[in-house]
């Protein structure tokens, strides 16, 4: 086996499949098709108007929301914005630290939003927001048993990703870097390993800072990218939404196209044959490159 990320591989778009980014290349999670492979969060935008324009520009069709205590003084409904954009809402369990909390939050999300889809998030501490593997797996098993379609936010750990898949998760969502850091993909080797072994969609979730990070995730073979901060806190969220849409399409296409192997030394792309020799240069001498 060659290195896992040096070339495009059959784990991504397969030969004979329709071109990436077309209606014939949908993302399929739990039997539901999405034309866009960009999943977005809604947190961090300055206001609902900025969020709406960014979401539209990104082309996303699936968007996360959180559940928090009702603010009686709050104005404007986030759900109205999401309905106008026409995206499917994916409630998350952000902030939960234990399986018990995540279960209750997921069930409340199901009641509030009328969906049994959940982005499962169980974090270990507030400083890193890294997933707590033990609580995460416990919660995933219980939610699957309870009939939920579980999209699990997880560490970039190939073993844990497999455990979550075996527990019945509909998608595994390894982090590129801690939430909100914008550090990109810190362990591309592990992400490629997760992709190589997964039988369910792999969504690169968290850590994306800019468009090249999203493209890289898709080049590594991820089926989709989930991001929020990179767009909502960009100086121009709408423009970054556009950039991310193109990045995901470009990365998906590049993965399907199969990149060239990386080489240590140059390989001329112009032919050597017919190279002119000027002045007193020798015909069979060492030519200039």
């Amino acid at each position, binding site marked *: 086996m060659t290195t896992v990320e040096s070339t495009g591989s059959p784990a991504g778009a397969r030969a004979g499949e329709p071109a990436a980014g077309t209606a014939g290349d949908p993302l399929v999670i739990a039997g539901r098709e999405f034309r866009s492979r960009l999943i977005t969060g809604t947190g961090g935008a300055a206001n609902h108007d900025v969020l709406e324009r960014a979401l539209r520009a990104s082309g996303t069709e699936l968007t996360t929301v959180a559940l*928090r205590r*009702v603010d*009686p003084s709050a104005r404007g409904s986030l759900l109205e914005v999401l309905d106008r954009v026409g995206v499917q809402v*994916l409630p998350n369990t*952000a902030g939960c630290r234990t399986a018990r909390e995540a279960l209750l939050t997921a069930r*409340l999300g199901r009641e*509030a939003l009328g969906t049994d889809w959940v982005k499962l998030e169980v974090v270990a501490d507030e400083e890193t927001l890294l997933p707590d593997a033990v609580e995460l797996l416990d919660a995933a098993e219980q939610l699957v048993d309870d009939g939920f379609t579980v999209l699990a936010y997880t560490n970039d750990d190939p073993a844990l990703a497999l455990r979550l898949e075996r527990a019945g998760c509909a998608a595994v969502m390894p982090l590129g870097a801690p939430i909100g850091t914008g550090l990109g993909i810190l362990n591309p080797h592990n992400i490629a390993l997760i992709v190589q072994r997964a039988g369910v969609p792999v969504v690169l979730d968290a850590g994306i800072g800019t468009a090249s990070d999203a493209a890289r995730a898709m080049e590594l073979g991820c089926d989709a990218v989930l991001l929020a901060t990179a767009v909502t806190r960009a100086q121009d969220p709408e423009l970054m939404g556009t950039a991310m849409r193109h990045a995901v399409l470009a990365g998906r296409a590049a993965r399907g196209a199969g990149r060239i192997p990386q080489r240590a030394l140059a390989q001329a792309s112009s032919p050597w044959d017919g190279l002119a020799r000027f002045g007193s240069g020798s015909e069979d001498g060492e030519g200039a490159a």
Partner: protein
Amino acid sequence: MTPGTTTGTAGTTTGAAGEVDVVVNAEPLRVPAGSSVADVVALFAPGAVQGRGTAVALGEDVVPAGRWADTPVAAGDRLEVLQAVAGG
């Protein structure tokens, strides 16, 4: 101060005028005895529309959206009234 709010800690006693003290989102709230979850939500957050976007936990139990009106609250009950907000 919101009508119906009490400054005391929520107790398990019934008020003189047939009222009970409950806790909603960590805030003490005095409601008429015999109130339902729907009544409590209406008192606590009049703008929160029953149904899409809002969910209620009574203790550690989720109250299904269709059951707010026929789920009574008792003195000392702790409720969480949640809504979908930007996040994730």
